[in-house]
């Protein structure tokens, strides 16, 4: 009977494997489409006189924070002559469950144009308030640049900072704000990271 159980395990795994192989390209395409859609929504103010360019992968120095993926995928936004902004992904591993994937659009002065949590597994009803489908919390960062606030202000209010932490779910907003702070500080100190030669 143990053998039979193992056989059933094998058969069901094979079945899932087949479906996985069939749906994989479709899932990748669907994810890419969702990412692009999000990109357009995020960088909308910049698209008045700019256009989304082909993404560029760039190696980062070893002092870059862990919130940035290496190599970093930079999607430049440019008008006829200059790069007027960029969209980059970053992440936080300090959320309540799993990695929170975020996407940020910055203008050429590194002012936040848009910020979104694009993939996360935070608790429904508590931590998922970082999602624009639930609340507008994440839009409160729009228009800010790293130098607008003192370093201590870049934190949730529970930690003495400027940003609202949700009742009962401080871990999630804290994870987002801290990852954002690390990312922005690094970019502020190394502004050339985002510059992409066309």
């Amino acid at each position, binding site marked *: 009977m143990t053998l039979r159980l193992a056989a059933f395990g094998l058969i069901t795994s094979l079945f899932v494997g087949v479906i996985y192989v069939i749906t994989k390209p479709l899932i990748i395409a669907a994810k890419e489409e969702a990412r692009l859609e999000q990109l357009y929504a995020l960088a909308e103010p910049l698209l008045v006189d700019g256009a989304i360019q082909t993404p560029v992968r760039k190696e980062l120095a070893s002092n870059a924070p862990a919130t940035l993926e290496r190599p970093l995928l930079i999607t430049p936004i440019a008008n006829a002559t200059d790069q007027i902004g960029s969209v980059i992904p970053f992440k936080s591993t300090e959320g309540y469950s799993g990695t929170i994937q975020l996407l940020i659009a910055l203008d050429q002065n590194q002012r936040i144009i848009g910020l979104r949590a694009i993939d996360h*597994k935070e608790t*429904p009803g508590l931590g998922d308030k970082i999602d624009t489908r639930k609340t507008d919390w994440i839009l409160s960062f729009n228009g800010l640049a790293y130098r607008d606030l003192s370093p201590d202000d870049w934190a949730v209010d529970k930690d003495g900072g400027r940003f609202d932490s949700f009742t009962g779910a401080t871990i999630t907003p804290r994870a987002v704000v801290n990852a954002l702070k690390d990312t922005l500080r690094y970019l502020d100190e190394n502004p050339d990271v985002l510059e992409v030669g066309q």
Partner: protein
Amino acid sequence: MKIVTLWLDGIWDRNPGLIQLLGLCPLLAVSNTLENAFGLGLATLFVLVLSNASVSLIRNLVDDAIRLPVFVLVIAALTTCAELLVQAFDYPLYQSLGIFLPLIVTNCLILGRAEALARREPFVVSTMDGLAQGLGFFLVLVSLGALREWASETLILAALPPGAFIALGLLVALHQVIQSKLKHLRTQIIANTKDRRVRTTGDIS
């Protein structure tokens, strides 16, 4: 006759959502909008029909020692497939259902039907039962979703978790009222036929 009873049981008499009160967690969590309810209802129906069908097919191959692990294996595999398919064909729906899509695996309705019926009955009966029970669950989920989405326009409570309990309570109450009316009607009809029989026996004696 058996098939008719199966359908009646699944959709009305022993409706999984309103009478058996199974699968309450997704029922309450995902019914905040009609679209989510529809999507999860379909995914659950898909898993339930296929799990009933496959459990029935393998019913003679498993003994009591490995029955439960094999059933759970089958249900988990089917749920994973449902998750992959939703992800491939309706990515926004996948995103808004979130954790509740993989959680279909813990919906006790599915293991319940495998244990209670599909492991003893032939393929056609089991598949029909999966369809009937799944449809019953789907209908409750969709009604709840529609009710809450409609009510939340004027009453914000309807969109919040407590609203889900209240709305489900109202649906259960409505079901009970109609059910008791039907029962009353049924007993009246039976009483009428009994009356005649009494007279017949009376004549003989």
